[in-house]
């Protein structure tokens, strides 16, 4: 309590200190050499790099500087506290649950998480995404987030938006940095270091190493946690949301002319949210993931280039289950391997046309009871191995009809071949489990994108887009608890978006208004039925009825030099598209007026104020989620609260040294966020009435 009061006093004191002229980004850019300036990238979210305001859909770019100036620990914090319309909650099985535009479903498999444009999702469908909770952000250059689908560029998985992590490089981040951070409440220890070196134009290397350890915290007694879980955290001395053993992240980024090589490795061992330690619930997640991404961009001439890449991804997914009654730990899991080959030809040869066409083939497998990086696997009884191939062809053309009007259209065809699934079958004759091989066969899907961009004047522009997204059924969808869903096909989204943008004017004011109407077809993880028996579901099948999500996102920013006031608002409601009024949507309330796992209103705000010639940066951050007030759910009384979280940060920099202090939930009023219908607080979807304070000291040359 005293600590919180102290931080608040400091914040208010410093906000009234006289402002000194700041150094702007343009001043810093103007200090670069011409060559360096020509290397500064314009933000990219498509086949061709284009300014955000021209890219179809609602896009938010979070730069490295913004990341450093936020009171956050992890990617999930950035999503939750900063990005318009993004809602974060927790799933009982694997931690953070990411949702946009109402789509809170039991796993993250329909949100595409990428490293530099390459799919970094695990594909067996457990909803695990590497590094979302890991408090190691020192190797990230920027994060691109799109709330709508974008399958034309990125293929399967972008039903529920996508997130693209762009790592740092040695040209933009030369020399070394070090940072240590300590968390007062959760006893977090974190160390990060990186080094960048440029040895010529387009020649650089960047290496990064970070590790973290933290105790986590005891689940709160509020919100019905103990009474429902049956486990008193004081008695069992159990924690949640911690990294009890050092978790780490390494990366190596090497660019040499037109060749680039990226190597990333994460090892995360963290408490699964739930405290429950019965035979069904798990206690600890142990994951490792590695991405190896060689890429070659062959510039043929001024008009054409070919981008060729062979990304290889490895994932280990381990679960440790600690049984309180007999004090034994069992560890089980499996590994995934993905190898892909992708080629894109881009040409601007034809006047006013920018054309991209390409294709990819991917080979993937999942092997149960086998680890690549982890060890101590001691429970091998589930063998379920899978092999499948993916391939696709895509094309897009951006046509500049007039200087102020451009139009783009693109098509994509994707195919998945499920080669085989090895499943365990009980043989009554031998009274043993035997292996059976099934071949679910192939599925095809076509998607498209049309977009219009119109420049009203130098400050104002409109965008309209129609985009489709899809998501191939994953292993956990095809085969679940002994049932094979052989007829399961890809789920699909059609999204209409209308966007108006006002770029920064002479007063530093900019804003962005986006309206969307999304139609979900053949949904796998959302059911539509004529009754409420969603929990006793059959093996997975595609929903027979379409449903919609509609709403909008709004963001406004006032920027004066390096100071800024940023405000966002997200609104979303479900729409029942079935002719049968009795149809219920499993993630909406009974009359389909609200989502049951997503706030109707989400407000976020971030205020940055600099002092002493930008040496002192103060940040005040705010999140509001509207309450969930559906009476039919047993969890409604827990979620029927306004969720308000306030975070603060102060960072002081001098010469190469800085000190950073930040506090999360400083008013101690974080109630559990609304989440998927099964994710109750006693299963890990926790709130907390504690504040968390961190202090970091860093040095960067």
């Amino acid at each position, binding site marked *: 309590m005293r600590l919180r009061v*102290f931080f608040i006093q400091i914040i208010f004191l410093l906000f009234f200190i006289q402002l000194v002229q700041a150094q702007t980004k343009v001043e810093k850019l103007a200090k*670069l050499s011409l060559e360096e300036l*020509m290397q*500064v990238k*314009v933000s990219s979210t498509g086949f061709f790099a284009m300014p955000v305001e021209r890219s179809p859909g609602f896009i938010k770019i979070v730069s490295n*500087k913004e990341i450093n100036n936020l009171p956050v620990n992890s990617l999930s914090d950035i999503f939750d506290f900063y990005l318009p319309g993004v809602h974060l909650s927790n799933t009982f099985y694997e931690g953070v649950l990411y949702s946009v535009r109402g789509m809170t479903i039991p796993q993250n498999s329909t949100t595409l998480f990428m490293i530099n444009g390459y799919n970094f999702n695990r594909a067996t469908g457990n909803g695990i995404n590497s590094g979302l909770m890991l408090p190691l952000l020192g190797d990230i250059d*920027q994060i691109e987030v799109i709330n709508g689908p974008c399958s034309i560029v990125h293929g399967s998985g972008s039903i529920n938006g996508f997130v693209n992590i762009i790592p740092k490089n040695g040209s933009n*981040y030369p020399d070394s940095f070090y940072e240590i951070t*300590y968390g007062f409440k959760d006893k977090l220890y974190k160390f990060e270091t990186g080094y960048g070196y440029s040895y010529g134009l387009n020649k650089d290397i960047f290496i990064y190493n970070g590790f973290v350890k933290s105790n986590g915290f005891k689940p709160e007694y509020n919100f019905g946690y103990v009474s429902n879980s049956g486990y008193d955290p004081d008695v069992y001395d159990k924690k949640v949301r911690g990294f009890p053993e050092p978790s780490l992240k390494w990366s190596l980024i090497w660019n040499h002319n037109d060749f680039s090589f990226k190597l990333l490795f994460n090892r995360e061992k963290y408490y699964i949210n739930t405290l429950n330690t019965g035979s069904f619930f798990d206690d600890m997640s142990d994951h490792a993931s590695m991405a190896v991404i060689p890429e070659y961009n062959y510039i043929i001439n001024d008009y054409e280039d070919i981008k060729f890449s062979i990304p290889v991804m490895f994932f280990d997914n381990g679960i440790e289950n600690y049984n309180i009654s007999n004090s034994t730990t069992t560890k089980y899991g499996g590994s995934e391997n993905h190898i892909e080959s992708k080629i894109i030809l881009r040409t601007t040869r034809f006047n006013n046309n920018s054309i991209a066409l390409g294709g990819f083939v991917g080979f993937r497998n999942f092997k149960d009871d086998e680890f690549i990086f982890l060890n101590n696997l001691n429970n091998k009884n589930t063998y379920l191995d899978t092999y499948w191939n993916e391939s696709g062809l895509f094309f897009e053309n951006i046509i500049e009809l007039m200087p102020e009007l451009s139009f783009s259209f693109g098509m994509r065809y994707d195919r998945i071949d499920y080669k085989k699934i090895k499943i365990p079958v009980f043989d009554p004759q031998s009274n043993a489990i035997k292996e059976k091989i099934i071949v679910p066969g192939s599925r095809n899907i076509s998607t498209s994108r049309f977009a219009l961009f119109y420049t009203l004047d130098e400050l104002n522009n409109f965008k309209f887009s129609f985009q489709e997204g899809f998501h191939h059924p994953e292993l956990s969808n095809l085969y679940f608890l002994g049932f094979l869903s052989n007829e399961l096909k890809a789920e699909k989204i059609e999204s209409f978006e209308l966007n108006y943008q006002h770029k920064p004017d002479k007063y530093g004011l900019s804003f962005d208004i986006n309206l969307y109407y999304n139609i979900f077809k053949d949904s796998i993880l959302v059911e539509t039925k004529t009754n409420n028996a969603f929990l006793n579901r059959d093996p997975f099948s595609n929903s027979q009825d379409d449903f919609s999500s509609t709403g909008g996102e709004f963001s406004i920013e006032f920027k004066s030099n390096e100071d800024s006031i940023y405000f966002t608002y997200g609104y979303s409601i479900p729409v029942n598209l079935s002719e049968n009024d009795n149809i219920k949507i499993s993630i909406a309330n009974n009359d389909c007026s609200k989502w049951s796992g997503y706030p109707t209103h989400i407000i976020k705000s971030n205020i940055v104020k600099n002092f002493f010639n930008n040496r002192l940066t103060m940040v005040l951050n705010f999140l509001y989620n509207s309450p969930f007030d559906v009476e039919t759910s047993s969890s409604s009384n827990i979620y029927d609260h306004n969720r308000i979280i306030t975070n603060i940060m102060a960072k002081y920099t001098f010469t190469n040294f800085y000190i950073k202090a930040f506090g999360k939930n400083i008013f101690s009023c974080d109630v559990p966020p609304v989440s998927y219908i099964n994710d109750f607080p006693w299963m890990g979807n926790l709130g907390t009435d504690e504040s968390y304070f961190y*202090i970091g000291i860093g040095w960067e040359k």
Partner: protein
Amino acid sequence: MNHTFILVLVGKNNMNKKIFFIILLILFIKTIQAEINIETASEQEIKAAFIIKFTHFVKWPKKAFYSNKDEFIIAILGKHSFGNLFDPFIGKRIFGKRISIVEISNIDKFEHAHILYIGPGEKNNFSKIFNKINNKNILTIGDTKGFAHMGCIINFIQKKENIGFEINIDAINKTNLKISSELLRLARIIQEK
């Protein structure tokens, strides 16, 4: 990570006082401007930086400053989306002259400018603008496809992931401006037929 070090630093009993003391101490230490890493920038930020940067690679003849010896004028013609990006440069000196930024909507008012940025909205007025310039020692910078071919000295171009520029050699030769070879080396060269 040295845990002991951190615990000693903050203490347990007097943690608040010690942190407060540390922060106050740091606040009053004489400081030097920190170096901040470059990141991805918006299109307009990069272009604004280029416009300032070009001044280091172009030499204006003395007579370009006869009318106003102490001022270096960058004129922005037409509606633009630079916002207040140029504000930090106003009043700063470049080869001894104060930079002033002038936003103009009328093509009659740039006569004394040293740099003239021509916004995309001025495409239809292009021939009028160049008749008015009439080979004066003004560095014209365009931001529209085809402007360099039409006589603009420098024109921004969108490369695949970056911003670049093209230079019309014949347009330079019509003035007494001297452009450094380094700038020419990095530009896409345009020559009128």
